[in-house]
């Protein structure tokens, strides 16, 4: 079936309609992330906002970035944030105050920043900009990434390794006694925390408790 050249009854191009729908979805769900009372719903609306953004990338023609957005943000970061939400939900019920008491100042600051950015975009004429997006295939992007930007690529991989090690180090519990460690295995159990070696892997030194 052949689609008509423009949207029926509206006389818009299909691109414009898709752009408006995706942009409205993204801005609306981002707003709901920020002002929503229930933090789990905030997390789920964040998934929707990132999905709409992936659609915008695809509409622009940046297919590789769209795929990476789905993989990294929808697949990894959203799951990580939802896990963190579940780990830090307090049993005491929903929090009464979502915002700080100075939220009005934050609103003014955000409106001023947004207004400045929008004004600077509208007042600048971009003389080099093309009227239509320029098609770049994934092959072009890959050639650039592993050609001109290969040093940055390697640095990024080291950074990710450092982040993984740092995340494990920060989030691990160090109060679980290790039965194979002779320093923490004491017969009467009274002096076990005093003689415990501070941090087996060079972790933070535990304060020695008085028995």
């Amino acid at each position: 079936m052949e689609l008509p050249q423009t949207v029926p009854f509206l006389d818009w191009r299909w691109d414009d309609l898709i752009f408006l729908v995706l942009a409205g979805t993204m801005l609306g769900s981002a707003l709901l992330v920020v002002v929503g009372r229930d933090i789990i719903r905030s997390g789920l609306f964040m998934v929707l906002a990132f999905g709409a953004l992936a659609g915008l990338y695809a509409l622009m023609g940046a297919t590789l970035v769209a795929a990476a957005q789905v993989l990294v943000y929808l697949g990894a970061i959203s799951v990580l944030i939802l896990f963190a939400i579940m780990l830090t939900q307090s049993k005491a019920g929903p929090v009464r105050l979502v915002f700080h008491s100075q939220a009005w100042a934050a609103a003014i600051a955000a409106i001023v920043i947004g207004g400045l950015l929008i004004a600077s975009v509208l007042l600048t004429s971009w003389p080099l900009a093309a009227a239509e997006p320029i098609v770049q295939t994934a092959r072009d992007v890959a050639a650039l990434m592993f050609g001109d930007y290969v040093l940055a690529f390697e640095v990024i991989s080291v950074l990710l390794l450092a982040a993984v090690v740092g995340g494990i180090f920060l989030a691990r519990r160090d109060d679980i006694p290790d039965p194979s460690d002779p320093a923490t295995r004491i017969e009467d159990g009274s002096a076990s925390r005093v003689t415990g070696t501070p941090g087996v892997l060079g972790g933070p030194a535990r304060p020695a408790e008085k028995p």
Partner: protein
Amino acid sequence: MSQSLDAYLLLACGLFAIGTFGFLARRNAIAMLMSVEIMLNAVNLAIVAFGMFIPALAGAGQVIALFVMAVAAAEATVGLAIVIAIYRNRRTPLVDEYASMRE
């Protein structure tokens, strides 16, 4: 109309302003991190838009956007680990109750 550099840049500006408000106003540390992610996404949208519409940049915008995504993933990992480590001591994710850090 919509397929122009201005449209995408205005969208990025709006998204960045929303993220700014969330980062400054929310009490929950994880909501603050989500707002940071929204701001990073707004910047990424602007970078990709520049890369797609300006011929001199041919493809560099997408490469830089992929790097920003990797850095954002690293930031989310370490940030959430810090939030969970603080939550384990303080039993609350609300940043305005971490008052002992400023003493």
